[in-house]
């Protein structure tokens, strides 16, 4: 009975269970149908969309930066090249715990707060996700090894090689060549759309000097490649590539040996030297001291390094070679030429110098330097002697006779008062004053009493060392001025140098007196250096001759020149610019100037030297100028070893 009851129950239970299984089956059918429909929707209906998304995930167009063109000097010495460095980079998306990684990195390599701050700035500027951002540049081999050992603890952090600018001559060439550095926000916004596209892969841009001026030539054209990247941003395959066009290699007029010699001649003194090839206007050397190591800027200078640079207060970043200042007596030959050209004087014109010049209707005299020595003057003096003796009275008189407008018009034709250089846009124009200029710039009328000072270069007139060198080169070149230029040519693919042809408007514009009269001034400048003491006449020697004689080394080539001493505050100086400055505060010492040139028929070099608070032009600046000419003109001259200089970095 019990058995039977159980069996009945059993059948009923089977029925219940089977019904429930049918319901479950129906549910399963519905669920599977929904799933299949959903899969069909994803894989068939929306296939195109997802296929595109998938490609978008893995395919990346990336820019391949072109190699920057190299910069050579006139003899093929490399002034700027590209070197591989190893950088520490971060892919933010993959760096799971950046702070921990940074702490670890700090303990194994040299990583400053400054580095990290700079990294965060770069990170915030980065536009493309999953790309690497530099954290620190130029790892040493030891640091690379330390990172490799800890790599497993540093997700998203890797060491990448990159070609960056390198300046073998470091400090020595800084002001001539300039430097590249990271492109900043302002530069980015200033770019045209086309240029911005070309700079997509580029990190650095020329900031100053040649690097900036010839940025277009040096940069090249960006390349592209399509790569397949994995989820960690690693490139798995390169699918397509358009090679970048490297920048053009360029050749400068610069002579690295001469540059080194000029820097050595200046020594530790603040100042500038510019040497120019008179026949071409090519800049052979451009030194400004103190300099700085441009390599520091390439990958971004740290705040600490910048502070260190500026600590001296001697403004090493300031290019003294292209800054304008009062030229002192170095202007006198050009005033003389102005007189001859305007026929205010002739070579035979003689004036009497009692030791001072007195303007008509004025009681206060303008003194010659001789007055401060022995209360006397030069007596009867012509132009030639006025130049080599650096007679102030003669030029006071001449300036007054010319008048400020004629002085202005004439000096303008020698490249003063404008940036006459073809490819040194950063150079100052200097000042060539006239009545209009003074009214416009100082809001005052021209006082007649100011004109005499313009005759001796201690007035308003200002010129850069570059302009002085260029003007000196014009005299050396028998009166023909060539526009100063840095670029000589470009190197084409075969290694052949193609000279650049700049449109040269200078020669036509120049106002020249007769050739004889130019030669007179040129010879007067040769006298400045070479004319010995005349035993019968007092003050008939060249103003720089005593310094030359004291050096004990006679010149081995013809040399012309002119010293100048620019007063910082009013002092009196002798003909050679000599003055005991011992008791004067260094900052109030006079600036020493000298312009000089190779006085042979086909002059090869002209130079202008400026020594800041140096003292007298003859005693301080002349030896520097001579050392530069020696270096260039004497074949057996001992030069500082170039390799030693380049190893300095």
């Amino acid at each position, binding site marked *: 009975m019990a058995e039977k009851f159980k069996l009945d129950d059993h059948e009923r239970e089977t029925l219940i269970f089977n019904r429930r299984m049918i319901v479950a089956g129906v549910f399963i059918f519905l669920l599977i149908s929904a799933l299949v429909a959903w899969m069909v929707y994803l*894989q068939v209906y929306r296939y195109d969309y997802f296929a595109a998304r998938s490609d978008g995930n893995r395919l990346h167009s990336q820019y391949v930066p072109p190699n920057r063109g190299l910069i050579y000097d006139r003899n093929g010495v490399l002034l700027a090249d590209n070197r591989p460095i190893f950088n520490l980079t971060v892919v933010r998306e993959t760096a799971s715990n950046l702070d921990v990684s940074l702490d670890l990195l700090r303990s194994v390599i040299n990583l400053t707060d400054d580095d990290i701050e700079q990294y965060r700035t770069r990170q915030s500027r980065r536009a493309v996700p999953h790309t690497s951002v530099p954290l620190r540049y130029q790892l040493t081999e030891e640091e690379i090894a330390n990172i490799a050992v800890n790599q497993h603890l540093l997700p998203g952090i890797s060491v990448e090689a990159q070609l960056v600018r390198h300046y073998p001559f470091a400090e020595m060439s800084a002001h001539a060549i300039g430097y590249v550095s990271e492109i900043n926000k302002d530069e980015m916004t200033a770019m045209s759309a086309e240029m911005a596209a070309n700079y997509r892969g580029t990190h650095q841009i020329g900031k100053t000097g040649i690097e900036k001026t010839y940025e277009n030539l040096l940069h090249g054209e960006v390349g592209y490649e399509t790569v397949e990247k994995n989820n960690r941003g690693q490139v798995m395959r390169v699918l397509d590539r358009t090679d970048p066009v490297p920048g053009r290699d360029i050749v400068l007029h610069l002579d690295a040996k001469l540059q080194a010699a000029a820097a050595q001649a200046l020594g530790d003194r603040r100042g500038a030297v510019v040497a120019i090839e008179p026949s071409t206007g090519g800049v052979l050397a451009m030194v400004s001291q103190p300099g700085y190591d441009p390599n520091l800027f390439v990958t971004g200078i740290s705040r600490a390094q910048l502070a260190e640079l500026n600590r001296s207060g001697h403004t090493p970043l300031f290019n003294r070679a292209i800054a304008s200042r009062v030229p002192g007596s170095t202007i006198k030959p050009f005033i003389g030429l102005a007189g001859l050209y305007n026929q205010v004087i002739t070579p035979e014109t003689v004036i009497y110098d009692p030791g001072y010049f007195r303007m008509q209707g004025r009681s206060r005299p303008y003194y010659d330097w001789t007055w401060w020595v022995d209360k006397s003057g030069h007596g009867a003096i012509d132009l030639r002697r006025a130049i080599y003796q650096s007679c102030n009275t003669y030029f006071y008189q001449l300036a007054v006779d010319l008048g400020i407008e004629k002085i202005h018009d004439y000096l303008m034709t020698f490249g003063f008062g404008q940036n006459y250089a073809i490819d040194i846009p950063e150079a100052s124009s200097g000042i060539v004053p006239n009545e209009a200029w003074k009214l416009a710039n100082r809001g005052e009328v021209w006082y007649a009493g100011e004109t005499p000072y313009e005759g001796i270069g201690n007035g308003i007139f200002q010129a850069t060392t570059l302009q002085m060198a260029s003007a000196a080169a014009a005299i050396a070149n028998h009166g023909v001025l060539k526009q100063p230029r840095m670029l000589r040519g470009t190197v084409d693919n075969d290694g052949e140098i193609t000279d650049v042809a700049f449109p040269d408007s200078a020669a036509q514009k120049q106002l020249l007196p007769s050739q004889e009269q130019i030669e007179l001034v040129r010879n007067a400048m040769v006298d400045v250096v070479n004319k010995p003491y005349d035993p019968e006449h007092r003050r008939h020697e060249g103003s720089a001759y005593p310094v030359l004689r004291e050096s004990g080394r006679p010149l081995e080539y013809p040399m012309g020149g002119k010293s100048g001493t620019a007063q910082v505050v009013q002092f009196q100086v002798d003909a050679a610019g000599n003055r005991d400055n011992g008791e004067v505060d260094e900052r109030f010492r006079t600036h020493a100037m000298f312009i000089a040139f190779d006085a042979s028929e086909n002059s090869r070099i002209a130079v202008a030297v400026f020594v800041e608070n140096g003292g007298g032009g003859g005693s301080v600046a002349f030896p520097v100028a001579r050392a530069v000419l020696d270096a260039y003109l004497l074949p057996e001259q001992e030069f500082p070893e170039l390799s030693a200089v380049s190893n300095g970095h």
Partner: protein
Amino acid sequence: MASRSITRPLGNDFYRLSGKRGLLRGRTLRIDAPLMFSLFCLAMYGLVVLFSASGENIADVERQAAAIVIAFVVMIGVAQFEVEFFRRGAPLMFVGGLGVLIVVLLFGSEVNGAKAWLDLPGLPSFQPSELEKFLVPMMLAWYMSKRSLPPRFRDLVVCALIILLPSALILLQNDTGTALMVVMSGIFVVLLAGISWRIVISGALLLVMASPAWYIFLAKAHQKNRILTFFDPYRDPTGAGYNIIQSQIAIGSGGIQGKGWLNGAQSQLDFIPESNTDFILAVLAEEFGLLGVLFLIALYLAVLARGFYIAVTAQDTFSRLLAGGIILTFFFYAFVNMAMVSGLMPVVGLPLPLVSKGGTSIVTLLTGFGILMSIHTHKRVLPR
């Protein structure tokens, strides 16, 4: 008569390895060939996909293959036990299972935030909570078999206790996904037992009404996040929504034919997270396309159909409920994973059965199928 049929195993000729009945009697291997064949195909298919999903890591595939071999051995071993063994042992095994869960809570080790793993010396670490997926149905089936169906309300209270006790322990291990699956495996048994539709519907309604309250008051931040992400993966495309977005891209870009084995860009370039465990379907769908997905679903349906057949032809309530519970749980597992990876459901951490990497999961799944085989191959001759 009944007692004799219980003690004497009587295999079905069809399911014996050998037809030589007399010679091999008592030594016959009791297996269900159709079920075994489907499971074997699934496992092999899984290995092929895993090789690609693990980045052609042969060591991973070997480990998985070893787990599969072990799992099949365990399955065949389990199939040799009498159903009666499971029925009688059910309460003991259930209590034992609870004991192990408590041990895990005290001494277990933590993986991915869930303290669900037991490291026994000399043994590979395993997840005892996985066992509950058939221990709970077994206990429920045992309890139901003592009662007459359909269950009354009092029985339901007991059932609820049987389900909730282990689930609560698993929840305490911080393993919500498994706890949910254990609850579901229990609910399937109760549903199959014939619980009144009125209770089912009111229970479902209650759940629907309670869910906002759960969301507001009880849900943890990451749970809320998953639900929000389900509704809009693009609210945080590189964070919470990343997995599902990349997985959908992989599936969708597979198209009908797929990109070919080892050629899935999403899979091979590591865009799919967890590509060899929970999200392995994305790899499969990308490389083998819709056809591959349909083939996978077909294999699951083959297993499911055989399981249904075994459940329906089972001879008593215990066998039936246990078989039904196990096979529905298996299907639910597979479905939830596929639905979640394709974005049809919020993400819950569940592997794709027999395909995803993971030894414990395969061994426990096949243990369940071993029980299914045991049910089918140990039949009594019933009086007609």
